C-alpha cells in the first residue's frame, strides 16, 4: 500500500526567503502525523504544499501516490484542508455552510444528509447551527470548520492548528473526534501545531521543524526517551540547542 504522504527534498522559496529547506517526511495511512515547531518554522507552508495550494520550488510531494503538482485535481478529491484561523461565510448559517461544503463531495442527496448530520454532531452546536456564523465565537467557528474537514471522511485530513482558539474543554473534544475518525473511518491526519504538549497526546508520530528543516522525527514516546526529556518541548529545546 502506498504512503499517505511522501515528501522528498521539498524546497520552497519566497523571494529570498527559504521557507522550506529540503524537507522530507513520510506519513503512513491511518496515522496521525504532527508537524510541530515554533512560529515561522515552515509548518503552514508544508501543509499548503500537501494541500495543493502552493507549488514546491523543488522536490516532490505525493499523496497516496498522486503528485500534488501534476495530479492536483485528483489529490483534491481525497483530501480536506483546514487552514489556521480559517473563517466561515458570515452570512450563511452553520447548517448552510456545512451543506454548501458537503455538496462538493457528496455523490447523492442521502450522502449529503449523512455528511451534514455527522458534522452537526461533531460541532455540538445544536440549535445554534441555524444562526449565521457571524454571530459565532472563535471556538464555535473552529468546531464548525473541524467538522467540515472531517464530515467527508477524506483519505487525508490536513489540519493546520486544529485546536487553535479553543478552550481546554473544546480542544479535548476536537482531539477525541480526530482520534475517533482515524480509528472508525481510517482517515489519515497530517496536522500542525506549536502546542507540543497537545500533539504528544494526539499524534502517532511527529516531526520537529525548525527553520524549514526537520530536526527530529519519531514516536513522541521514543523521542522523549532518546533525548531523555520529560516532554516534547524539552526535546525540541535540546535538538535546536536551546537547552
Amino acid at each position: 500500500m502506498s504512503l499517505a504522504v511522501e515528501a522528498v527534498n521539498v524546497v520552497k522559496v519566497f523571494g529570498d526567503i527559504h521557507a522550506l529547506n529540503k524537507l522530507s517526511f513520510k506519513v503512513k495511512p491511518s496515522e496521525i502525523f504532527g508537524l510541530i515547531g515554533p512560529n515561522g518554522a515552515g509548518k503552514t507552508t508544508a501543509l499548503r504544499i500537501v494541500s495543493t495550494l502552493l507549488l514546491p520550488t523543488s522536490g516532490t510531494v505525493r499523496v497516496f501516490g498522486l503528485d500534488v503538482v501534476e495530479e492536483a485535481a485528483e489529490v483534491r478529491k481525497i483530501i480536506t484542508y483546514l487552514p489556521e484561523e480559517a473563517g466561515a461565510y458570515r452570512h450563511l448559517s452553520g447548517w448552510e455552510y456545512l451543506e454548501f461544503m458537503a455538496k462538493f463531495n457528496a455523490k447523492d442527496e442521502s450522502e449529503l444528509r449523512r455528511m451534514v448530520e455527522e458534522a452537526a454532531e461533531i460541532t455540538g452546536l445544536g440549535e445554534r447551527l441555524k444562526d449565521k456564523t457571524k454571530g459565532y465565537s472563535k471556538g464555535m467557528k473552529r468546531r464548525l470548520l473541524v467538522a467540515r474537514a472531517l464530515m467527508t471522511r477524506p483519505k487525508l485530513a490536513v489540519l493546520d492548528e486544529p485546536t487553535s482558539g479553543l478552550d481546554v474543554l473544546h480542544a479535548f473534544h476536537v482531539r477525541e473526534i480526530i482520534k475517533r475518525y482515524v480509528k472508525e473511518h481510517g482517515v489519515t491526519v497530517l496536522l500542525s501545531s506549536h502546542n507540543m504538549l497537545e500533539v504528544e497526546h494526539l499524534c502517532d508520530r511527529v516531526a520537529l521543524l525548525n527553520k524549514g528543516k526537520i530536526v527530529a522525527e519519531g514516536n513522541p514516546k521514543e523521542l522523549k526517551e532518546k533525548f531523555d526529556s520529560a516532554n516534547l518541548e524539552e526535546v525540541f529545546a535540546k535538538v535546536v540547542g536551546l537547552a
Partner: protein
Amino acid sequence: MLKGFFNILIKELKELVRDPKILLGMIIVPLIIFPVLGGIMSYSVQTAQEQAQKATVLVIDNDGGKWSQEFVNLLNSTAKVYVEKNVTSLTDEVVQQLLSHYNTTQIIEIPKGFSENVTQHLNVNSTITATLKFYGVFTGSGIFEGIGASLIDNLVHQFNRIQAPDIVLTEKSSIIKGEIKQGVDPASLSGLMMSQSIALPITIMILLQVAMQIAATSVAMEKEEKTLETLLTLPMDRFAILMGKLSGSIIVAAVGALAFMIGYNYMLFSFTMQIPAEISVDLASLGLVPSLFGYLLLGISLFVTLISALALAVIISAFAEDVRGAQSLVGYIYPVIFIPALALMYLDISSLPFALQMVFYAIPYSHPIIASKAVIMGDYWTAIFGIVYVAVFTIVLMYAASRLFATEKILTAKLKFKGLRRRRKKTEEEF
C-alpha cells in the same frame, strides 16, 4: 478641549497619509481626473468654435432680389458661403445631393418674395415680415451641435438690428438620417438629446463601479475571512470559482442597475412632465430612439464591458490582502471609467484629436457610451466594432484571471508599494 484629541488626530493623519492607497486614490487621482476632463472640454469648445467659424453654408436663393443679396453679403462676413439659385423643390433627395455636393451641414433657403416683403415692411406696412428657412443636419454628436443653428439666429438678429426689429423671421428644420423634419429646431433637438444621453453614461458608470466593487469585495472577503484557502482545496474546477464569483456579481449589479434605471427614469419622467407640450419633441417619431437591433447591440456591448470590468476587478483584488485594500485598488480603475463617461456625455468622439480618439477607443469602458450614440443614428458598425474589441479584451482578461486562480498567485500575489521590507517581515512570520 477633549483630552487626547490631538494625539488621536495626529495618529490618524499619519496613518492615512502614509497609506499609499489613500494618498493615490483620494488626492492624486482627483488632481489628475478633473484637469484632464477640463482639458478635454476646453479643447472641444475651442474646436467647436473653430468649426463654427470655418463652417460652410449653402444658401439657396430663390428670391434673387436686393435684400437677399444684402443678406448673403452679411453672411459672407462670418462664414464661407455657397449660393445656388432657383432650387424651388427642396425634397429629401435634392437636399442630400446639395449637402453632399457642397460638403456642408447647413442650408439657408431664401424664399421667393423675400426682398419684396422686406421692402413692404420698410416702406408700407410694418406688420409684413420676411421669412428665412434654415435646415441643419442632426448628427447626434454632442453638446456643441447647436452652435451651427445659432449662427443663423445671430445673423438674423444682426440684420434686424440694422434694418428694423422683427423684419425677418426664421423657420428652422432638422435633417435627420437624410429626411427633412419640418419645424424641428436642431438646437432644441440637440439639447433634448443631450438630456437623454446623459442618463445612459451615468447608469453605465454607476453599474460598472458597483459591479467592480462587488466582485473585488467578493474575492477580498474570501481572503480576509480566510475562506479562499478552503475553497481552493475543494474538488472543483477553479475556473468555476471564478465564473461563480463573476456571475454572482453580474446578477447583483444588474438588479442594482435596474433599480437605478427605474428610479432615474421616474425622475426624468417627473421632470419632462413639467415641460410644456408645445415645445416638447417626440424623439420616437423622429427616429431618434434605437431600433430593436440597436437595443440588442447596446445590451451586448454593455454586457461584455461589464464582464471585462468584473474580470479586471477580480484580478486586481487578488493583489489585495483584505476588503479595504481591494476597494482602494479597484478605485484606481475609476478614472478610466469616469473620464470617458463624463467626456462622452458632452462630446462627439470624432471632434477630438486623433490621438485622444485612439485613447478613448482603447478604453473598453468608452464603448457602451459610444455605442449608445451610434445605434440611435443607425450606425451599427461602430457598435459592432466596440463589441468585438471589448470581447477580445475580455477574453484576454478572463484568461489572465483563470491563470491567476489556477496557480498559487491568487494567494501569494501582493501589489508592491513602499514598505517592501515590512511586508517581507510579515511574510516570514506567516511561515
